[in-house]
């Protein structure tokens, strides 16, 4: 089998182009269909810093309540996990699994994977299980929904504010910041790691 490191194939229309070398925030798009071909990313150090910050925010977003309400002096609040449990408690249980994946499991995997791979890349090494983890990474992206969770929390607050006294919890702020960081990290084109790190054949 022959490889062609100087070419790149568009995943949207299969057009072949010469692989460009990109710098800084440059991005290459397909001349035929306009889809993104390749993106240069921030340095690994930047990405590692963002990933570690995301890890901290993730913990805050999951430990602290997202919304709290107050009815006649009785208070109640919920975390993200609480909303999963509430759906799991009824006939709607199967969808609780999807919500748990989208808000809790997939974001955790993304952050964990990123930290693991970048900490090793930082030391000039290929992380153990690199191939396997990168394949998982490629599949995770569409199922991470923290940003939808932020909007859902805001909608819930408006919905409840007509009936009861509502306050936004610490969790919602952490989620909002986390959504921003995850979006920045998702912008990173992990394919740029391969030429550097795939040198040592397994």
């Amino acid at each position, binding site marked *: 089998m022959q490889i062609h490191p100087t070419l790149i*194939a*568009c995943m949207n229309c299969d*057009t072949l182009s010469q692989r460009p070398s990109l710098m800084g925030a440059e991005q290459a798009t397909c*001349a035929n269909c306009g889809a993104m071909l*390749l993106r240069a990313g921030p340095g690994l150090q930047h990405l590692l810093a963002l990933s570690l910050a995301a890890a901290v925010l993730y913990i805050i977003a999951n430990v602290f309540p997202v919304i709290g309400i107050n009815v006649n002096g009785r208070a109640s609040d919920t975390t993200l996990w609480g909303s999963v449990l509430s759906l799991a408690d009824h006939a709607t249980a*199967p*969808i609780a699994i999807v919500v748990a994946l989208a808000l809790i499991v997939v974001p955790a995997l993304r952050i964990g994977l990123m930290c693991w791979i970048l900490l090793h890349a930082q030391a000039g090494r290929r992380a153990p299980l690199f191939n396997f983890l990168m394949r998982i990474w490629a599949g995770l992206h569409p199922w991470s*929904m923290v940003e939808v969770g932020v909007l859902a929390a805001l909608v*819930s607050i*408006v919905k409840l504010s007509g009936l009861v006294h509502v306050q936004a919890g610490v969790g919602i702020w952490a989620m909002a910041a986390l959504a921003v960081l995850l979006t920045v990290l998702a912008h990173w084109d992990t394919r740029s790691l391969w030429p550097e790190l795939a040198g040592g054949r397994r």
Partner: protein
Amino acid sequence: MNTPSRAADAGLCGCPVCGLVCDGVADPGRCPRCHCELHSRKPESLSRTWALLTAALILYVPANILPVMYTQSIDSGSAGREDTIFSGVIGFWQSGSWDIAAIIFIASILIPSTKFIVLAVLLVNARRRRVRRPALQAQLYRALEAVGYWSMLDVLVVGLVTAVVKFRGVSEAEPRIGILFFGMVVVLTMLGTLAFDPRLLWDSPSRHPPHG
């Protein structure tokens, strides 16, 4: 490059995980660099997408007819109310929050129904001998990929509201079965979008045997 040459025509295949372009791969093959499975086109793309789309359409009926949430509060007396997706939007509209009503309308009604139509159009066109304006359709596909998951909004709202309103006897909220169907519609249409191979829009069936 004046006439764009295409990987499949040149007997090449690009890896979706690491981006390496390699040669003479059996279909399915394995990428020599990252060992992921390689397909020149996503396997059985059209029939898989049709199947997922049909399943989603069937579930779309109970998702819209059945209630998604039950709420009961002190001021409305003992009689609780059950909301469907649509009555939820109307409720926001009537209470004066037209902005929230618009957001929910877009996420829960506009995006799913547009998705059905666009996916069906793409599926029909991918089989055509000559696809008209493939660039526009490729853009539509990328838009589907980008906005599809926002439809989960209502599911997450029901989860949060029912989790926080739990004052037994005073005010309670419970999820209802409609939200399960609605969530499944969103998941199925997302899977359908992923199963569709946009490269088929650029393949002319006179040169290639139809894939899937």
